[in-house]
């Protein structure tokens, strides 16, 4: 990737979610992947994000013990954005 087209690591991290959600256009997707070929740091980060998303998807409500579910619901009811 040439200097004038290069994504920095910070930019890759910023759009990694869009990348994983298949929400990037072809050109941006390619720029991300070209960066990942040589950047160990971003590759590792992407792998961790992918695992986190897979784990979150696997954790369906029925897998959460009902008492914990009640506690979580109670906690979220009292929660409001800062």
């Amino acid at each position, binding site marked *: *990737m*040439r*200097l*004038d087209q290069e994504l920095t690591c910070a930019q890759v991290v910023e759009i990694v979610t869009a990348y994983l959600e*298949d929400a990037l256009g*072809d050109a941006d*997707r*390619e720029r991300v*992947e*070209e960066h*990942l*070929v*040589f*950047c*160990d740091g971003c590759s590792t980060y992407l792998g961790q994000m*992918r695992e986190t998303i897979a784990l979150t998807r696997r954790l369906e409500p029925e897998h959460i013990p009902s008492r914990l579910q009640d506690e979580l619901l109670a906690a979220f009811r009292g929660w409001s954005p800062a």
Partner: protein
Amino acid sequence: MNAYKFLADGAVSPFAGFRWPVGAWVEAGSADVCRLGIHACRIGDLPFWLGPELWEIELDGDVVAHPRKVVAPRGRLVRRVEAWNEAARQDFGASVLSRTRTRFGAVAVLGGYVGDIERHLATGRVPLAAFAAARAAERAGGPIEYERERSRQAAWLADRLSLGTD
């Protein structure tokens, strides 16, 4: 057409994590394969996508050419290019280092790339070393020199691995 594809160990695609079967047709959009198409390299594309395993792939359907890859609706792995092994990776890295040292080793600032490449190779990061060599060339002569260095890398790979021409 036949093209090439770098894969991770075990014939796994580096981005989608899809484990490629050998010899069987794979359709784009099927489970876990990139929905946008089967991506593959012409010889000139190879240096941008270096990976542990290199495979020859047969593509079928409308093959669309992009600046750094070709994309097809289906493809199947034909054979692994066994010549792309640890020795070849090291020799490729050495050729990149030697060319960069010859061209820029004595040039202020650009000479720093030589040390970078040495460090990347010492830790087995061949793709990063190849990228650094292209960046050194670009800083010396602009984007056209980036492309030229990548072309030299591609020519080395085609020659050493006895790959067919584009």
